[in-house]
């Protein structure tokens, strides 16, 4: 059998295996980010499909209850029931006397210190076997034993602090109602099982709920299940000993949660996050103020082309690119281009337009503008096939199937290529270009475009694709699975490994404008928290914190003065920021909160 036939047959088998694939609900028919509606006592979202679960909340559910929802009067726990109290985690729940409670954790590999989760209770209508031969994050054996008339319920304690003063509408869920945990399906092979999977916030603590119903589940058992969940109550506030969020976090809060600078000492900066929709979230760590506002040009989608800072301007947008001066707030339309790419020259930006108005569609041309919108170089066809990744002095670094090419408008021939087809351009400072030469990214190189000299700045497994030069170009900060690596571009050696900073999430890193502080923040789109860090270059002190809201992508760093128009005034009464749950957000002006 030759290679053509081998590929044909492999493709046939893959298509056949997907032919029975369950097609999920059409995207766009409900919010991608499901905000949690909360009251001071109890809050939930409709992911459980239990109207009874909502009887104690004054706010309506944002989620869409599934068709199998029942009325509140039906969702009760039959008597006699067992009232179980968990003193360690501080909750009570009532379940039918003929149900089984697991004595051990079912999903033995579920607990993740960095994500602060822990299975706290599993119940079923049948004996529950822990563990499984594979997929330790799934209650595999219990799922395999699930009969057609059985139900399995598992509760997982998530992140979130108790009694926190932040508006709970900022807590957002990454789970969609009815969205099946497909890992459970693929690991167990139980596509016949009806899954309900969701998260609710109760008294400031997140609990994730996993429910699996057998295929012939009857209404009575279904209603009983909702009744069991409805009976859940906290019996004790979260404390350092009862809330894993405060005991196992990789990035523990270092400052008092209510007063004082978030990082202990003032940072004198504001972190401005791309909210992934149409605006920015400004986070003032010194005064513990957060504010959301719309940014001209900012549009949902395409994270890699998010917010950048060029001198005094914020550049945002795709299709229509805008620059907003942080001092005056004035917005300038830079041009109609498919995307923008940062330029090596100060106060300039590259605009890239494909004739098909989509990335890679048709012929591409590039031109440079300044932040006032003045055209610096006329549109010129990109003669190198590939993707313009980042500006270099006088041109662009292009990622192509032949490696990274250096392209200069008007040049007869382009600069030499380096790296292979998977080479990635990372960042530029002056003549220095940092790049990964191959897909493994085991090595990170810096090439000096003036001298042609290349040095290896990092050589170890685990680089995570994000690197930033310090403003003066003397350091390169790299995010790795082992932590944050700070390397000297003068010596080519790593000068510090900040190994306290390990996370399962993508980590962004940015420098303060004066280059004295390095900030890191986790990707938090669809999450209820951001993990933050501040590293002082001179003292090598690391301060970390977790803020209890999320919904952010990359960020830029502004000084306090520069950021004033993105923050509510210190004496302004924080108003309730509505949750960002649709696109565009519909937000006008600025709203804020304290944390």
């Amino acid at each position, binding site marked *: 059998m030759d290679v053509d036939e081998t590929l044909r047959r492999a493709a046939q088998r*893959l*298509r056949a295996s997907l032919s029975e694939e369950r097609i999920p609900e*059409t995207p766009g028919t409900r919010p991608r980010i499901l905000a949690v509606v909360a009251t001071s006592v109890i809050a939930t979202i409709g992911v459980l499909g239990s109207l009874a679960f909502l009887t104690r909340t004054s706010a309506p559910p944002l989620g869409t209850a599934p068709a199998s929802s029942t009325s509140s009067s039906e969702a009760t726990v039959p008597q006699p029931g067992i009232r179980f109290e968990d003193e360690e985690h501080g909750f009570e729940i009532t379940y039918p006397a003929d149900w089984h409670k697991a004595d051990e954790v079912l999903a033995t590999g*579920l607990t993740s210190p960095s994500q602060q989760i822990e299975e706290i209770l599993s119940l079923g209508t049948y004996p529950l076997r822990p563990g499984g031969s594979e997929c330790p994050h799934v209650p595999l054996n219990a799922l395999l034993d699930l009969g057609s008339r059985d139900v399995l319920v598992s509760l997982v304690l998530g992140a979130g602090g108790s009694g926190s003063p932040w508006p709970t509408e900022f807590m957002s869920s990454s789970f969609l109602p009815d969205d099946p945990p497909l*890992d459970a399906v*693929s690991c167990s092979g139980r596509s016949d099982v009806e899954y309900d999977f969701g998260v609710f916030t109760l008294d400031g603590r997140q609990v994730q709920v996993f429910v699996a119903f057998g295929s012939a589940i009857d209404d009575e058992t279904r209603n009983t299940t909702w009744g069991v969940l409805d009976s859940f109550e906290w019996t004790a506030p979260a404390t350092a000993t009862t809330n894993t969020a405060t005991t196992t976090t990789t990035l523990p809060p270092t400052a008092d949660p209510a007063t004082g600078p978030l990082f202990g000492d003032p940072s004198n900066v504001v972190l401005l996050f791309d909210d992934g929709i149409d605006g920015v979230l400004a986070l003032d760590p010194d005064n513990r103020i957060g504010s959301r506002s719309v940014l001209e040009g900012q549009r949902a989608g395409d994270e890699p082309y998010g917010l950048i800072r060029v001198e005094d301007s914020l550049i945002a947008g795709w299709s229509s690119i805008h620059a907003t001066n942080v001092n005056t707030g004035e917005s300038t339309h830079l041009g109609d281009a498919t995307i923008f790419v940062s330029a090596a020259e100060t106060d300039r930006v590259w605009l890239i337009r*494909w004739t098909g108005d989509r990335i890679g*569609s048709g012929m591409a041309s590039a031109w440079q503008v300044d932040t006032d919108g003045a055209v610096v170089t006329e549109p010129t066809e990109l003669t190198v096939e590939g993707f313009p990744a980042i500006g270099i002095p006088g041109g662009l670094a292009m990622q192509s*199937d032949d490696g990274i090419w250096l392209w200069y408008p008007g040049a007869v021939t382009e600069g030499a290529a380096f790296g292979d087809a998977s080479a*990635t351009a990372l960042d530029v400072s002056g003549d220095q270009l940092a790049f990964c030469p191959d897909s493994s990214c085991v090595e990170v190189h810096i090439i000096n475009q003036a001298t042609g000299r290349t040095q290896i700045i990092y050589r170890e497994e685990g680089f995570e694709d994000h690197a930033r030069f310090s403003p003066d170009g003397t350091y390169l900060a790299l995010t790795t699975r082992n932590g944050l690596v700070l390397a000297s571009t003068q010596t080519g050696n790593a000068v510090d490994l900040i190994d306290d900073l390990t996370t399962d999430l993508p980590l962004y890193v940015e420098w303060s404008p004066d280059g004295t502080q390095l900030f890191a923040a986790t990707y938090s789109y669809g999450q209820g928290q951001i993990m933050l860090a501040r590293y002082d270059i001179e003292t090598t002190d690391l301060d970390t914190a977790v803020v209890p809201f999320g919904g952010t992508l990359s960020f830029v760093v502004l000084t306090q003065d520069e950021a004033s128009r993105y923050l509510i005034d210190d004496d302004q009464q924080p108003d309730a920021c509505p949750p960002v749950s649709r696109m565009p957000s519909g937000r006008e002006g600025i709203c804020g909160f304290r944390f």
Partner: protein
Amino acid sequence: MEDIPIVRGVESFDEFFRREYRAVLGLAIVLSRSRPVAEELTQDAFLATFRHWDRVGRLDSPGGWVRRVVANRSVSTFRRAAAEGKARLRYQSRAHRSVSRELAGDLDVWNEVRRLPRRQAQVIALTYLDDLPRREVAEILGCSEETVKTHLERARKTLAAKLKTPNEAPYGR
């Protein structure tokens, strides 16, 4: 390559989604290898399509549009990182590093496809998985048919060597 709106009835996004979902998921699985990551990529691609449905739905090939989004995102390390982040959140696990079960029977084949240069991997996936002619692959990837032919020939040659199989098939697609 210009997208030329054509005058025809625009099908509903729901119909389009149900018709194309499995095929697009398959493409993402092959190029990303991970089932949860593929789901995130597929979901994001259809969400992007949904947002632009007024325009995309009138294109000659909305299916090509969503395939291009998935093909590009699947081989983009940044976007993969974002998708993996979301997948990890959703599954609260390291499942993104697990191999999709759909690939299990031909893992060696698909692993070698993924090791190809990104454009070659895209061409192979689109050509074989969707059984698309060269012209449509070229339209999806925004390149010429000649470029597709070159990528396909190079990819077959590499795969034949890696998989230790003959490369007898004439270039006919």
